[in-house]
């Protein structure tokens, strides 16, 4: 990829220092994201400790099969993303575009499955609000579980939608030969974001789907 000479901004000594600064900057953004999602994880912990039975009950209304399939799909998309960064580093242009497209496909598959899960929740009246289907003594507490379930998975899904959108831009740039061994910072930073979203799901999956003995 001799065509990918990238200009080093004047405040940096060399391309490596510039790359290092970009990586650190991306990580600082991801640290704010840790604390952004952290607020919801805190809410989850506080209410799960307060209403343990309702959380088990709510969790049993989730579709474990679809949740597991989505976990496999998302971790698979992290592999294709990592292989995409690798392809950029070693200058395999077509493999890079291919892996980025594969990541988009897997990310979209995750969102479609999540959509089916949400649709089933609407169908069964498990969406918090008027007409919530569970009316027993634990009803309002299970409703709270579903508030937290929807807030956390929807925030996660919004991150996925943004990720797929940015991936599409990066894939288009890659298909025009914008990246190679000399310059692949946007691909690398895209990877960091994508893996971060994967890490959030790695915690959401057991905390939402796998509690109270399935």
């Amino acid at each position, binding site marked *: 990829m001799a065509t990918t000479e990238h200009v080093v901004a004047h405040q940096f000594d060399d*391309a*490596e220092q510039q*790359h*290092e600064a970009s*990586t*650190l900057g991306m*990580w*600082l953004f*991801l*640290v*704010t994201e*840790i*604390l952004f999602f*952290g*607020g919801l*994880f*805190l809410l989850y*912990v*506080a209410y799960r*400790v*307060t209403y343990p039975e309702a959380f088990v009950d709510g969790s049993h209304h989730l579709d*474990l099969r679809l949740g*597991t399939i989505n*976990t*496999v799909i998302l*971790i*698979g998309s*992290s*592999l294709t*993303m*990592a*292989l995409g960064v*690798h392809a950029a*580093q*070693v200058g395999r242009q077509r493999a890079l575009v291919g892996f980025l497209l594969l990541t988009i496909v897997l990310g979209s598959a995750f969102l479609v499955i999540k959509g089916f899960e949400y649709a089933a929740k609407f169908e069964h009246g498990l969406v918090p609000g008027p007409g919530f289907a569970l009316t027993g003594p634990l009803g309002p507490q299970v409703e709270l579980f579903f508030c937290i379930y929807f807030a956390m998975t929807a925030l996660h899904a919004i991150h996925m939608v943004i990720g797929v959108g940015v991936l599409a831009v990066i894939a288009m740039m890659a298909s025009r030969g914008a990246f190679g*061994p*000399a*310059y692949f910072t946007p691909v*690398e930073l895209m*990877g*960091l974001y994508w*893996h*971060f979203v*994967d*890490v959030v799901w*790695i*915690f959401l*999956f*057991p*905390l939402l*789907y*796998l*509690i*109270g*003995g*399935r």
Partner: protein
Amino acid sequence: MSQHIVPVRVYVTIFAALMVLTALTVYVATLEHGALSTPIALAIAITKAMLVILYFMHVRYSSGLTQISIATGVLFLLVMIAITMADIVSRGWLGTPGS
């Protein structure tokens, strides 16, 4: 650029480990473990997250400055949860004054 290049073999191995851990956490959840089930599920999730962060996100090969920035973020998340839970868990201990 003298960027560390992780071999494809490492990525595939990490992916395989993540799949095994996913199967393990689902299997463990189907058993009734009582008080132990959440610590086990969290231990598996933390292991999976560490594999993704260290290898897929290259943090194992990152600069010390990047590593300490990430550790600080995680530390403050734990501080936030610990201090809030110290309040929530202990609220009932002394009863409500005046009642």
